């Protein structure tokens, strides 16, 4: 049962990561709408009208934490949480405090300019850095799962510094 939930969440967050795209420290545009994902089945009331966001849902989370507030970014081969990242994670923690039964998965990612196995290890480090900070400011560790995708799921698709900067990330996704 637990496994199923996690698996479903993993599938969901895969599509979320794709759709959300384009995250970077200096935000220039909103993430595109979650069109084409299957949020409907698990996250929103099927009777709710279009554009109506259900409190506590993934969409609500994304809206409340602000533009790209679901993710923190890292320098090459680094996994430290800097002041800007702390502010981002604090907003996430505030939202999580309002929905104490909601669990999250923190995805750790690396850019394509690393070897596969090392990037899996690096993604683990980044996801755990975010998790550790969240727990240090009061989020119960039992609510947080981590998963590393290494370089397998880029958010930005270019092969340049800008794209790599966006891909070195830890993304928080709610488990609904």
């Amino acid at each position: 049962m637990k496994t199923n939930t996690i698996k479903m969440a993993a599938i969901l967050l895969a599509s979320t990561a794709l759709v959300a795209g384009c995250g970077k420290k200096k935000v220039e545009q909103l993430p595109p709408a979650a069109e084409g994902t299957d949020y409907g089945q698990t996250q929103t009331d099927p009777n709710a009208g279009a554009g109506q966001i259900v409190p506590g849902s993934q969409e609500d989370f994304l809206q409340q934490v602000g533009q790209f507030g679901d993710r923190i970014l890292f320098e090459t081969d680094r996994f430290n949480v800097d002041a800007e990242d702390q502010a981002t994670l604090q907003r996430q923690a505030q939202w999580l405090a309002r929905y104490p039964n909601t669990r999250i998965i923190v995805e750790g990612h690396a850019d394509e300019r690393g070897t596969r196995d090392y990037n899996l290890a690096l993604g683990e480090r980044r996801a755990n850095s975010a998790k550790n900070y969240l727990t240090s400011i009061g989020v119960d560790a039992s609510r947080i799962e981590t998963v590393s995708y290494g370089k397998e799921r880029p958010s930005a698709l270019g092969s340049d510094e800008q794209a790599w900067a966006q891909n070195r990330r830890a993304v928080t996704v709610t488990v609904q």
Partner: protein
Amino acid sequence: MTSFSFYRKLASFLLLIVGSHSVMAQTPPPAPDTDEPELVEFDTSKTRSIAVPALVAPAPADTPAGNSAALGRQIAEVISSDLRASGVFETQGPNGLRAIALPEVTAPQFDYWKGRTVEQLVQGFVRVGGDGNLTVGCYLYDVGFGNETTRLGFNVPPREWRRAAHKCADAIYAKLTGELPFFDSRIAYIAETGPKGKRVKRLAIMDSDGANHRFITNGQSTALTPRFSPNYKSILYLSYVDGNPRIYVYDIDAGRQRLITQSRNPTFAPRWSPDGQTILYSMAVAGNTDIYKISANGNGTPVKLTTSPSIDVGGSFSPDGRQIVFESDRSGSQQIYVMNADGSNQRRISFGSGRYATPEWSPRADLIAYTRIAGDFRVGTMRPDGSGERLLTDSWQDEAPTWAPNGRVIQFFRTAKGSGKTSIWQVDLTGSNERQLPTPVDGSDPAWGPVLP
């Protein structure tokens, strides 16, 4: 009975009595890197001309793999293709060469072949036995000397005719270069399709020449980093099937898989020990990755080999199983380290510029292949003490070398800048004869298995 071993013994015997004449290159090649001239014993710059006419089918008969006359031509094609792909030979035939009569197989018309500037001649026959199996005879002649160099016989079920061809090519390659064979072997890899942001990655296997390709997983969950067991019965690989990266052992015949260790932690970078009894893997606990080993039988307890608070990952056993080469960023960046198989005596061996990753110990023990990251990613080799560093490739991103079973050829995968498309390539130890391996779709994470028995 299919009996490669019987025929192998026969072949060894024949080699003993017949193979007195060696045509190995007598002079060492000019080494690009003068401090290590002993690395290359054969001269790939001087190709030898080999003719491979279609094998004769004395009494053509139908088999489940086609008529034996057609098989005679196909076997010659595979032999010719193997030898050509090795980079050591120029081959002629079977296309463009005349048909051979059965008596010629044991009594070649040397003057005719001399007239075609052929140095070596491969002839043979295919016979369908009463049991339905094929007997493939394979003869190698030195045209200049006008004598037989070696002969071999293989008895195979028709569906395995390609293996007889590979065994024949292997015997010729070994005889003429003095190196160990490698054609009759298999490769596990990851077949890739789809756009860069949503890549579908499937476990797949194929022969060393790309034939007999088979997808193992359906692509619903991402598969990565496969490794054939030394006996080819199972494959270690990483799958996200339960949502998290974990290593499974896939049993090829049974079509089932199991986790290598029951743990909620992610496991990755699997490798077999040379005897297939032990599995090496990396596991992240609370974000910190270390290297572990566990018995391959599924009942053992994991043994932790590294303890540094940095990333220790990957690892590859030396052929004698006594040492492990691995990568670690404990110095501040990815570098290559060697330790004893029990984790003791860990020491850094890479000190060049840039980062070093994915070390892989050669089955010949003499070298370690790796990915060097200094701007671009290139595949290189160094001795186990870190000396004699040599880069073999030069591209935007070449990664994850794997050794041919004879330790003379290296496969790796190449990622294209921008598109992220991947392809499998191989290169020999001199850095020459680089070529792409044919795969039905994009390919990455190649893993070369041993020569089949």
